[in-house]
């Protein structure tokens, strides 16, 4: 059932462009029923929790889908938010001719993401991982006519797919260490602590996860990815795909616990990312970058919690993943509504929309409360459990706590900017007449916001069961409550909110004068651009070195290669050559008649004359002599058909050469003497190789000639007495047809070239 669910989503994606025009206005509702149905199946456990699907049986690869623990939590998130985003897209892309393509990409992503979190086989996980990178690329670059969208799409693909390679290397090594490809079995496997490869595996997987989840130093691609249409930002770049890295670290955490640097590294990376994201977020004034940087910060917090490593910390991370997905997706969708209905993205030019967009204002407020961490919201519960955990963390607790409080303060500021500032205060004029969107667009975000409040008010309803299932050791999971009473975490919450208030006040004061660019480039992004630039220059230089355009050098390389391959082969078989030559010299010389010697001598002289001729006519004539001598040889050795053909064709060739180049000057020495000497040396060496090859070939017949068959059947089967002719037109008739085709094409090409001679061009002034 699980593999069927993933399959249905993929099929819906592929069929969406065809279905959309036929379903009309009902299409978004019907499309969103698919993830909704899977969500219902997951929640009611109608869809089983394990499902296998044979993939490459000869390699023992089976796609094993397992919806348990963290996978289950993510599957619920993906299908739930997927349904909301699908419905929302119906309104967002209403009347847009690209809607079919949009739904196709969206569902392909949804299927890939679901496959990723459900995969129990690491290699199918990797394939789905890369598929999410590719679909993310397609969604970021959806407005492909905009250069910045293309650049951002390429950047995200290079960063995440590059990290994917590192992940693949890590997973392969891990499979070698644990002798299994099943994720569940890997985590359960007993790995000796001193396995020398394990730290490498951990480092490689950490790089892969850090690129996907926009951790420092790869944080820059996520804010740039905000050029994607807003539904994609809400779905991929806040609630699901960017959490894939967190998901993987979470799942593999038990494996790497024994590595001394694992926890501190995660805490360091996560903490720095949380602080950077928080710092950058409060400097933004445009809705989506604001939310994107706060997402970076949240992802940092999650990684940090996983690094802390205690069961309580993992539990807190799971609660935070869920709460964050609920409010962040809703806020992105609100940002999309504001952009869609007012045409304005800068919060400094938005204000007082409460009257015109009441439903949007309510949605934004509910989600904003959750993001800021006001009591009775999911965000509050998540934050409290995080503080509680960090207060009891075994190491670096207070440092992590500082990170968390600072990030929390920035969340409060961001929440104010997105959900309070645009809707309250004096009404600022907007380009478009602002009003609430249609039901497709407000229904989903309102639902998510409402869920955020409900989950915060009654944590045992949604947060606790899902998060508890994710934690690896379920038996001592802390109890979640909407209100823990007055304690230290609550005090920290109050400090967080107060700090947030200070940030808001500072921003408010500075906002009028601050016009600095929205996207401050951080050091690591400059590194990305420098690397891209280097790559460009390297490939240009390589192309210009290899593709120098000098025909003779290309030829020289090809011939040299051919000789290098031929020579050892010939040499190996040429061992008995000495006695062969002496025996031939003895018997052959006597056997050879004088006119044959004369012919060979003539040919060799003609060859020399062709090479040495000073005029074109001389060279062509000498070439003709070579051809005629060969024709005579054909006559002498029982091949009259060849002789006739050779005579005709040689004559034609000589005439053609003489005519084609009549406009050219006589031969000159174009190359310097040393080049000619070098080429001559090379050519003579090549000639010697070919001579030896001939002698070896003479002695190399291992099988009887097939001639006897043709001799016997030529008359009986094909009713022809000339066996050569019969072979050409009957036994190998299709080959001859191909040959005729080649000649016809050559003739057509030649004709086309001759027709466009400059002198004969119509209407051209001479």
């Amino acid at each position, binding site marked *: 059932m699980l593999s069927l669910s993933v399959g249905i989503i993929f099929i819906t994606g592929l069929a969406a462009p065809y279905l959309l025009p036929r379903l009309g206005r009902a299409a978004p509702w019907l499309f969103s029923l698919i993830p909704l149905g899977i969500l219902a199946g997951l929640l009611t456990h109608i869809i089983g929790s394990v499902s296998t699907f044979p993939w490459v049986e000869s390699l023992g690869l089976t796609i094993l889908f397992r919806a348990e623990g963290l996978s289950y939590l993510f599957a619920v998130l993906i299908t739930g938010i997927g349904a909301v985003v699908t419905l929302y897209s119906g309104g967002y892309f209403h009347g847009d001719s690209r809607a079919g393509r949009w739904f196709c990409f969206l569902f392909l992503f949804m299927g890939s993401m679901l496959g990723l979190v459900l995969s129990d086989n690491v290699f199918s996980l990797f394939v789905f991982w890369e598929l999410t990178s590719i679909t993310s690329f397609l969604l970021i670059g959806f407005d492909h006519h905009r250069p910045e969208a293309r650049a951002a799409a390429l950047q995200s693909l290079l960063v995440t797919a590059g990290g994917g390679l590192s992940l693949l290397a890590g997973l392969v090594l891990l499979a070698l260490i644990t002798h299994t490809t099943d994720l569940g079995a890997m985590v359960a496997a007993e790995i000796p602590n001193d396995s020398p490869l394990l730290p490498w595996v951990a480092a490689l997987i950490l790089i892969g996860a850090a690129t996907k989840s926009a951790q420092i130093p790869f944080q820059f691609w996520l804010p740039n990815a905000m050029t994607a249409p807003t539904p994609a930002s809400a779905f991929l770049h806040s609630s699901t795909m960017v959490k894939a890295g967190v998901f993987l670290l979470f799942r593999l955490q038990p494996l790497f616990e024994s590595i001394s640097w694992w926890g501190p590294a995660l805490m360091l990376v996560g903490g720095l990312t949380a602080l950077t994201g928080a710092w950058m977020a409060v400097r933004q004034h445009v809705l989506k970058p604001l939310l994107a940087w706060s997402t970076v910060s949240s992802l940092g917090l999650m990684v940090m919690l996983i690094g802390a490593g205690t069961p309580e910390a993992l539990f807190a991370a799971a609660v935070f993943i869920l709460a964050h997905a609920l409010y962040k997706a809703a806020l992105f969708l609100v940002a999309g509504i504001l952009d869609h209905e007012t045409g304005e993205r800068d919060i400094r030019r938005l204000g007082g929309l409460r009257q015109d967009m009441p439903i949007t204002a309510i949605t934004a407020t509910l989600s904003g409360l959750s993001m800021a961490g006001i009591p009775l919201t999911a965000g509050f519960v998540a934050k409290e459990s995080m503080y509680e955990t960090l207060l009891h963390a075994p190491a670096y607790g207070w440092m992590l706590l500082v990170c968390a409080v600072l990030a929390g303060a920035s969340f409060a500021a961001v929440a104010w900017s997105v959900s309070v500032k645009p809707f309250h205060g004096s009404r600022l004029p907007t380009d478009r007449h602002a009003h609430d969107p249609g039901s497709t667009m407000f229904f989903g975000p309102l639902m998510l916001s409402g869920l955020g409040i409900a989950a915060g008010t009654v944590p045992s309803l949604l947060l606790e069961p899902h998060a508890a299932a994710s934690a690896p050791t379920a038996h001592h999971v802390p109890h979640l409550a909407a209100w823990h009473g007055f304690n230290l975490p609550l005090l920290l919450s109050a400090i967080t909110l107060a700090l947030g208030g200070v940030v808001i006040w500072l921003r408010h004061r500075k906002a009028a004068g601050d016009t600095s660019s929205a996207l401050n480039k951080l050091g690591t992004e400059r590194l990305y651009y420098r690397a891209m630039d280097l790559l460009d220059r390297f490939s240009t230089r390589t192309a210009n070195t290899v*593709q*120098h355009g000098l025909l003779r050098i290309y030829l020289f390389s090809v011939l040299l290669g051919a000789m290098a391959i031929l020579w050892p082969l010939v040499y190996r078989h040429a061992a008995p050559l000495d006695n062969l030559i002496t025996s031939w010299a003895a018997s052959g010389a006597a056997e050879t008649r004088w006119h044959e010697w004369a012919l060979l001598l003539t040919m060799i002289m003609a060859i020399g004359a062709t*090479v040495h001729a000073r005029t074109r006519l001389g060279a062509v004539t000498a070439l003709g002599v070579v051809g005629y001598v060969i024709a005579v040889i054909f006559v002498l050795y029982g*091949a009259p058909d060849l002789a006739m053909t050779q005579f005709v064709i040689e004559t034609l060739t000589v005439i053609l050469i003489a005519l084609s180049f009549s406009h050219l000057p006589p031969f000159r020495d174009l190359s310097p003497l040393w080049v000619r000497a070098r*080429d001559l040396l090379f050519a003579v060496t090549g000639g010697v190789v070919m001579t030896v090859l*001939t002698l070896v*070939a003479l002695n190399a017949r291992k099988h009887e000639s097939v001639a006897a068959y043709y001799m016997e059947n030529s008359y009986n089967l094909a009713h022809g007495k000339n066996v050569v002719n019969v072979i050409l037109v009957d036994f190998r008739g299709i080959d001859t047809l191909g040959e005729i085709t080649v000649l016809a094409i050559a003739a057509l090409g030649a004709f086309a070239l001759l027709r466009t001679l400059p002198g004969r061009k119509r209407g051209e002034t001479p």
Partner: protein
Amino acid sequence: MEFGFAIAIGGLYAAGFYMMLRRNIVKFILGLSLLGHGANLLIFTAAGLTRANAPLTAGGSGTVMADPVPQALILTAIVIGFGVTAYMLVLGGRVSQLSQADDVDALRESERGAE
């Protein structure tokens, strides 16, 4: 006899190689032609030289006849070789006429990548 032929084949190949490495476009085509001759003669010789009769079934069952298979192969090769040479000639003639040059190096601008 075969020894003499082997030397002639080597000569044809050597001359073909040398001519194809020249910058003059006509020499290049002549070299290609020589190389074709060399290949044909190589197949002919390697199949076994015999002063036998042409492979005609009318000759009766007793007579020794040349192998028809390499002959069929070479016949095809001669004709295809002519097709290639003819096309090369027209193309080379046209190109040298347009570029007013017989030097292949003068044509390399079209092959260069962007600097």
